[in-house]
């Protein structure tokens, strides 16, 4: 189609090439020498901002018992869940948010973490420290094995592979592995378990087997404080990973994996380490579930649990630091508080309205609360995905930008 064109080009270029350099220098709008602008070495992420974010996050987490009061969510069991699933989502985000690899099987590592922790309570000690270390390590080993195979594929095939492995773990826990998992009954800590480490320092026999941190029983608020400390450590590590060259390479893989190979990176080890780290986060979350309630069941590994962490991450904002935690809190709040709202609570809420209007308002709203909480969550999820593809964290950022004004094209994460 461009045969004639090219020939013309070929001929005209003869003249053009000779006149090119002279022609070039007469063009005033092309600077021959760029202005002597020295490299600007201001940090990409001002350390102050990161410290401020960590401190604010810490204040928000540790003051949960106060600010959750008006929402009716300031009881230890629920706050523990906020922290634990926050860790799960923050870890999941290291894989999904940074590399773009969508795992549908991360609940497997949560379950493995729980089983490992309960076994540690049974065989080693009721102390939480060995339980947490053991769970994180074992979850890491499983993540390495599953990740090694699954990461040979990308996109939907990767997702399907992880889903298959997780369902395999779930079904094995109910069948072949019953000696380890105790099947449907679930694995529990017994009064007369061996507990070799406890036996060394004293008696391994306890009246009520409860996880403890050097004598402090991990029930109620103490359990929440333990989870909150773990959440802070998990958040800080995630922050460091995001700000590291490794984190930048992960985002490079998400952005253009082909290019990563052509600039000289072997991308597989990067994705595998991201997979292992996020598996270890899930293991930590699983261990904490066992810490606050020393019982492990296979239902934790079901595919719905894997799907839940995907929802949390996307709802809050994949690839952001705070988003996954926000998503986890929101979903757990809906699941536990919103689902308990009944007809009477609604009538109370609308009591300021005249009788007839109140009945009407209640009948409109009631399908969305109580047992219908999934409907509200679904609507919220759809709205976020359509209008805020960056999740709620992007929404907050937009609001922040509106207040500060301008500065649109500059990016920050």
């Amino acid at each position, binding site marked *: 189609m461009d045969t004639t064109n090219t020939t013309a080009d070929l001929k005209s270029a003869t003249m053009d090439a000779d006149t090119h350099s002279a022609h070039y220098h007469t063009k005033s709008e092309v600077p021959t020498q760029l202005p002597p602008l020295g*490299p600007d070495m201001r940090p990409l992420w001002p350390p102050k901002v990161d410290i401020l974010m960590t401190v604010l996050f810490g204040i928000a987490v540790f003051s949960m018992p106060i600010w959750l009061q008006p929402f009716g969510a300031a009881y230890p069991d629920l706050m523990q869940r906020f922290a634990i699933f926050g860790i799960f989502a923050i870890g999941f985000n290291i894989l999904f948010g940074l590399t773009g690899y969508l795992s549908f099987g991360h609940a497997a590592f949560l379950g493995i973490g729980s089983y490992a922790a309960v076994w540690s309570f049974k065989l080693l000690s009721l102390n939480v420290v060995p339980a947490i270390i053991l769970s994180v390590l074992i979850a890491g080993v499983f993540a390495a094995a599953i990740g090694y195979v699954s990461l040979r594929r990308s996109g939907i095939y990767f997702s399907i592979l992880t889903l298959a492995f997780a369902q395999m773990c779930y079904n094995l826990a109910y069948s072949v592995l019953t000696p380890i998992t105790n099947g449907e009954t679930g694995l529990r800590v017994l009064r007369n378990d061996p507990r070799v480490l406890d036996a060394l320092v004293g008696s391994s026999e306890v009246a009520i087997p409860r996880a403890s941190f050097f004598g402090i029983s991990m029930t109620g608020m103490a359990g929440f404080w333990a989870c909150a400390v773990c959440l802070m450590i998990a958040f800080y590590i995630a922050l460091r990973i995001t700000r590291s060259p490794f984190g930048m390479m992960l985002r490079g893989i998400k952005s253009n994996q082909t290019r990563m190979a*052509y600039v000289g990176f072997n991308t597989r080890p990067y994705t595998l380490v991201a997979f292992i780290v996020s598996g270890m986060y899930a293991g930590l979350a699983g261990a904490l579930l066992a810490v606050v309630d020393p019982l492990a069941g296979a239902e934790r590994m079901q595919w719905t649990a894997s799907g839940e962490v995907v929802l949390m991450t996307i709802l809050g904002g994949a690839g952001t630091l705070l988003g996954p935690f926000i998503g986890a809190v929101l979903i757990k709040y809906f699941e536990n508080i919103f689902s308990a709202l009944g007809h009477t609570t609604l009538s109370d809420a609308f009591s300021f309205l005249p009788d007839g209007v109140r009945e009407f308002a209640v009948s409109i709203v009631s399908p969305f609360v109580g047992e219908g909480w999934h409907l509200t969550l679904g609507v919220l999820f759809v709205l976020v995905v359509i209008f805020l593809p960056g999740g709620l964290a992007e929404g907050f950022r937009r609001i922040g930008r509106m207040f500060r004004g301008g500065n649109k094209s500059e990016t920050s994460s």
Partner: protein
Amino acid sequence: MKGNAVLHVADVQKNFAGLRALSDIDLMIEEGKTHAIIGPNGAGKSTLLNVCVGRIAPDEGAVVFKGQVITGKKPHEINQLGIARVFQTPEIFPDLTLLQNVMAPAYARRDGPIRLNLLSALDADKDVRAEAEHVLLDLGLIEKRHHEAASLSRGDKRRLELAMCLVQHPSLLLLDEPTAGMSRLDTNRTIDILKRIKERGMTKVIIEHDMHVVFSLADKVSVLAQGRIIAEGTPDEVRADPRVQEAYLGGAH
């Protein structure tokens, strides 16, 4: 190895479903020279580059880079040996900032194909950052260094991709139509940049449709038509060759 050839494409053949894309390609790229490959659409120019960077495995023959056979190596291994490539459609990291786009290849050059530095800070590596800033300054993109690469114009994207290659100081730079879709002004700017690299002694292979670019830059020109090299020589020799005129007129369709 004969002479001072950096790259030797030795008797390479490639068929695609019975269609001969490359046949008996034998090509020597001399050190420090700019070697242009021209030819009508579908002549096999891009396929040839794909064979060089490990994207496509040849059916027969081999590619030798600095005395080492690189056919069968993975793309990242070939890059680590010192071959960088600018693609026909810009292959950049659209979600990263320009600075990060250039820092990533600089890291690959410094640390090799794998370095799992999870807890070190990106901001601590001042040398990598400074190098990336200098290349962006050199290519006139410094003002936009904190912008997302997706926001760039097509011409700027190509220049960014060139920056990503230059930051690695490759011994061989492969350019697949580096000025396609650029305005005359941007084209001249790119020519100027490429001339400057030449002064630093970097070997380049350039595929180009724009004869203005070819004759401004090339020391040697190979003409490819229907998967064969039909002519080779200095720009003046090639221009005078009747076979070249014929290939452009009658070879394409």
